[in-house]
């Protein structure tokens, strides 16, 4: 039984039918990469799963030994509280709050994992009193990932964490993702194929608002022709 089952997910944004029946499953453990060209609906898929955009269809959560839960009828904060951490595209840190306040806001109970967060991103400890809006893009990404890792979330939805980052920071974020994958099941939207090759265990490819391929990561990524055909890039390249 899959941990997350997305069935026939539809999203309309204005006149645009962005998701046209997206269906896929995420197995427990590892990193599932949600891939596709720009504008095919990857970010919208994550946002729809969390109820951040109006949607129709089914998103079921099935923890081992627990009863399955339908998420589509629940409001966003309740979906998150079922154990999902979310790292949004463009970070969405609260610019007017300090780094400490950004993290404190994310605390959901008394078991916040500050040791883990500071071990992964020591810089956040020294910059605790700094306004998040004055951080560099890479530092803001650290805050965004730290917020998701702070709670013991069995699932992480991570949207383009390396977007716009310098190569050194991409490596650091990829290492953080690897560590996160040891602690949680990760659904990752990522354009950087090098990062995908490093961390992904399975892939789901979206095109034109629908899923066109899903399976083990190696099966797709080891075939440059298929990567070229499905993603419009050369395998192993950096878009």
């Amino acid at each position, binding site marked *: 039984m899959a941990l997350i089952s997305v069935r026939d997910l539809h999203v309309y944004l204005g006149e645009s039918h962005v998701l046209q029946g997206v269906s896929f499953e995420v197995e427990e453990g590892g990193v599932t990469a949600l891939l596709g060209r720009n504008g095919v609906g990857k970010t919208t898929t994550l946002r729809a799963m969390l109820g*951040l955009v109006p949607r129709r269809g089914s998103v079921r959560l099935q923890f081992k030994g627990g009863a399955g839960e339908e998420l589509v009828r629940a409001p966003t*904060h309740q979906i998150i509280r079922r154990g999902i951490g979310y790292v949004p595209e463009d970070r969405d840190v609260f610019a007017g709050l300090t780094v400490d306040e950004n993290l404190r*806001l994310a605390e959901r109970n008394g078991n916040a994992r500050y040791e883990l967060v500071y071990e992964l991103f020591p810089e956040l400890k020294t910059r605790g009193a700094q306004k998040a809006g004055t951080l560099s893009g890479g530092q803001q990404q650290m805050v965004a990932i730290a917020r998701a890792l702070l709670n013991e979330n069995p699932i992480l939805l991570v949207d383009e964490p390396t977007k716009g980052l310098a190569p050194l920071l991409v490596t650091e974020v990829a290492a953080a993702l690897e560590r996160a994958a040891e602690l949680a099941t990760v659904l990752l939207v990522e354009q950087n194929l090098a990062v995908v090759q490093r961390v992904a265990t399975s892939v789901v490819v979206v095109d034109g608002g629908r899923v066109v391929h899903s399976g083990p990561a190696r099966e797709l990524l080891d075939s440059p022709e298929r990567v070229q055909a499905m993603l419009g890039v050369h395998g192993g390249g950096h878009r």
Partner: protein
Amino acid sequence: MSTFVLLTITGLGLGAMYFLIASGLSLIYGLMGVLNFAHGAFLTVGAYVTWWTSTHVGGGPGVKLLVGALAGLAVGALLAGLVELVLIRPLYRRHIEQVLVTVGLALALGALVQAIWGVDARAFPVPDWMIDTTTILGANIANDRFVEIAAAVLVFVGLTAFLRYTRFGLIIRAGVENRAMVTALGIDVRRAFTLVFALGGAVAALAGVLSGVYFGVVDPGRGTSLLIFAFIVVVIGGFGSIGGTAVAAVAVGLVQQYANYYTTGLGDLAVVLLLALVLLLKPEGLAPKVAH
């Protein structure tokens, strides 16, 4: 010199009232995107409940005013909280409908107040010491002006501390910046909505109490007339900013007083010109979209 001092302190007293109305209005819009045209009605209801309660309790004018004010604030908070729960929440993200509802509610509450207590102004319970004057640099200033200023300063400090040091304050400050991301952290931001509405209602009711003291009477149109200036204050200060609202309220109160005196009654026009100037030079307001 004495005239200038008098105008300044009177302007600050007026600015204090504008701040009390505008702070709730600003937080409500900053957090929820709701233009609450019923906010003035919270002020009117708060003032009337204060007056009505004061006529039904014993003791001197000071006790009457204090007990009445507590009742007025409680009713203001309760009314505003109920309005959010019953009328605003079902219209979340439907801004046009929200505006229509709050305008309709303002009209309905105004009519209700008139139906219950009539259209005539009612004398407010004002203790003698508030009517007495204190002489500063040759100017005889009514003591109630200092009460109004002190109340606004206390509310400003209290709101700032609340926003800075409490978890609810943290949620509100974050929500003003990015409401969707707050919910994506697992926080039920709707509770903050209700709290901000109730808080805004209580502070508007306090403005109603102080306006009763300032003018000596309370009338059904009080909230509406002050709300117009409160909106101007919010636009100048920047939606969602308590600091910006405070600065803008002081500026509007002072400009209005000075212009009224030195230009023979063009105070309201001067305020509108100030608004136009800010919109031209800094359209987003003095301190936009950050609750601090």
